[in-house]
């Protein structure tokens, strides 16, 4: 299909392109920027007046409900939610049911994604079998099945020796290890950040040291083993400082932060608001500021959604009995743009954290506007406001912590592989 996107303003952080220009798509690829190729007859013209045309977003962390938790959502509903927000690639965590720890489950995920044929689904394989932290998975076989990295899900590996061996093995398979860092013993069944809010509400709490200790362990072992690690969903300011120091020393470590943690702190939990029950927990305001600063100075290079759609029952119980997670993928772009509006980030910085930088972390040739690359494209109006209402969400999970927030950035068109996938 040949498509011309006209009158739009192109923004490509990878090349620092920032100008009004046409973009032409053919056979699933970007054919040209600016003047159409000779004899180019578009089948479809998209008028991108008043809109930004940027690479489709790459979300480094989502929890897809298929297979295993179909009461929370489906591949169809969640990929629709994603593309409605300009997200064209979803890296899905291995905490499916069954766990994504063998090639059969990876194939199942691929199959479903192909059937739905909407967004790119890039599975992360489990680092250990069953995510139990004891035995290694067949990482090479998983890589062959299209897994773009390995991950420990939301469960830190308690045994340091196992972690060391897992990192060594992943390095030998040339797989990036996505690590969620939270010492399980210090976590001690906590559900909120350890601080005055947890104390007032009498909720079991997770100290910052649970993350910081685990991050420092991961950095040391990465240095020792030569593994390429990506710290997934950092929440503490002190973790950022440690990662930055390691990067300065030359360690190939990267990190991302979940969009909720860039906007909310633990006070959002207020009087037991289960919609703000997240993992990692929302931390103090000072942590939030440090995370934003980390994005600015590059120690954190990506923003992810940490999308976790839940059914109503999962959030309907006394706080510590609710399930953690927020449904955020369809608002990832607009919420990231809010940081630009609030003058915390430039638009190039924000978009880079959502496109070329995540692409670099997963080692795929995506997230850029350049001829010859797959035409994963997002067209959005940066001035059009949207008020977030759970009832209007496309995700089956209505568990948004951002109800009634008005944000700017309405996606009008999304293309994946040169094919319009939104509007459906």
């Amino acid at each position, binding site marked *: 299909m040949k498509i011309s996107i006209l009158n739009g303003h192109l923004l490509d952080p990878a090349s620092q392109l920032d100008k009004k220009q046409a973009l032409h798509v053919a056979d699933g690829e970007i054919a040209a920027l600016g003047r159409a190729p000779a004899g180019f007859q578009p089948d479809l013209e998209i008028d991108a007046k008043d809109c930004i045309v940027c690479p489709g977003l790459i979300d480094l962390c989502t929890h897809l409900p298929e297979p295993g938790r179909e009461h929370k959502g489906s591949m169809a509903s969640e990929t629709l939610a994603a593309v409605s927000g300009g997200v064209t690639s979803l890296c899905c965590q291995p905490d499916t049911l069954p766990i994504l720890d063998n090639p059969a489950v990876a194939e199942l995920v691929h199959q479903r994604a192909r059937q739905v044929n909407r967004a790119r689904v890039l599975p992360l394989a489990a680092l250990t079998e069953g995510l139990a932290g004891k035995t290694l998975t067949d990482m090479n076989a998983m890589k062959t099945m299209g897994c773009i990295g390995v991950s420990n899900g939301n469960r830190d590996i308690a045994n340091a020796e196992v972690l060391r061996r897992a990192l060594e093995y992943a390095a030998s398979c040339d797989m990036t290890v996505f690590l969620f860092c939270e010492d399980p013993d210090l976590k*001690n*069944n906590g559900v909120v950040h*350890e*601080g*005055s*809010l*947890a*104390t*007032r*509400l*009498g*909720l079991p*709490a997770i*100290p910052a040291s649970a993350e910081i200790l685990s991050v420092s362990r991961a950095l040391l072992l990465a240095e020792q083993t030569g593994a390429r690690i990506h710290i997934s969903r950092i929440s503490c300011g002190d973790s950022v400082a440690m990662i930055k120091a390691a990067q300065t020393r030359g360690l190939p470590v990267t990190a991302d932060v979940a969009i909720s943690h860039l906007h909310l702190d633990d006070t*959002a939990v*207020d*009087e*037991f*608001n289960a919609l703000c029950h997240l993992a990692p927990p929302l931390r103090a305001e000072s942590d939030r500021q440090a995370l934003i600063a980390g994005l600015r100075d590059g120690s954190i290079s990506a923003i992810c959604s940490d999308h976790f759609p839940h059914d109503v*029952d999962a959030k*309907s*119980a*006394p*706080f*510590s*009995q*609710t399930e953690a997670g927020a449904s955020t993928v369809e608002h990832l772009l607009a919420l990231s743009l809010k940081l630009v509006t609030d003058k915390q980030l430039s638009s190039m910085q924000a978009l880079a954290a959502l496109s070329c930088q995540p692409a670099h972390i997963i080692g795929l040739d995506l997230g850029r506007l350049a001829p010859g690359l797959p035409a994963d494209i997002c067209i959005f109006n940066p001035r059009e406001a949207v008020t977030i209402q759970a009832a209007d969400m496309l995700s089956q999970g209505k568990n948004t912590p951002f109800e*009634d927030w008005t944000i700017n950035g309405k996606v009008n068109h999304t293309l994946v592989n040169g094919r319009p996938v939104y509007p459906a």
Partner: protein
Amino acid sequence: MTQTNIQLDKNGHLKHFLSIYGLDRDLLMRILDHARSFAGVGERAVKKVPLLRGKTIVNLFFEPSTRTRTTFELAAKRLSADVLNINISSSATKKGESLLDTLQTLEAMHCDMFVVRHAKSGAAHYIAGKVAPHISVINGGDGRHSHPTQAMLDMFTIRQHKPDFSRLKVAIVGDILHSRVARSEIHALTTLGVEELRVIGPRTLIPTGIEAMGPRVFHNLEQGLEDVDVVIMLRLQHERMRSALLPSEHEYFSLYGLTPQKLANAKPDAIVMHPGPINRGIEIDSSVADGKQSVILQQVSHGIAVRMAVMAMTMGTLADTGTATESGHED
């Protein structure tokens, strides 16, 4: 974004009694005043007033408790209400789903009030957010979060002996970390405007950031008790301890147990309180528990009057009422 205080109806009257946090000084004083009115009922021939006749109060206890449940039951009966006692072991209610089903079944039976005790913090708030508009919820204790009726009966007891809160130095001693009573009392004492509030305990049992709630923190009992007017001792909560928080009870008693010698640091007319049940020889010496400065038994008797007051105040407001009428009953 903060939620509005679900305890108050749109006219600012008490609709649910879930936590001391969010209630102002006037409201707390009104609870104490009403409790005083109800205190005399227990001394009459007919120990009842017909205030809540025809109403059904359900004691919904997800955590076992004989003493708290009994006082709520007595309070309800003295208001002439009918009482239903429902004990649900927490293992039977693993998910909020069963909790909601239970609520809906009870609502179908035309109950007017739930008194809830639950092992998880926030349970009473959760239930209050789910019940039909005409139903009031009273928190009988949720996890580590709040036990507001206990706090109020302790404030009632303090006021009996020391009427002016603004001149009081109060110390709360013990396992603050796991104590919902402590949290509610800290809110109550700071809202009522005590001169100084202290919490005293080992570092492992004082939660992070408690200063934000108002008290000064002490780890030395003698120093913490210096010059105080009221000493509130907390029970060591074994059943809530999971990890390595304390070496032995013996060591705890030697450092934080209230003996006559330690009590001598406080003012000579200081009163000693304990929400009960007492662990003699662990947090408090028998001679102090039974001594002349102890008001522990009075606390128990005040519980009924305070709970009557809270029940009457919350039931006396419906969604569509206006404000309470002025004095004068031109009938």
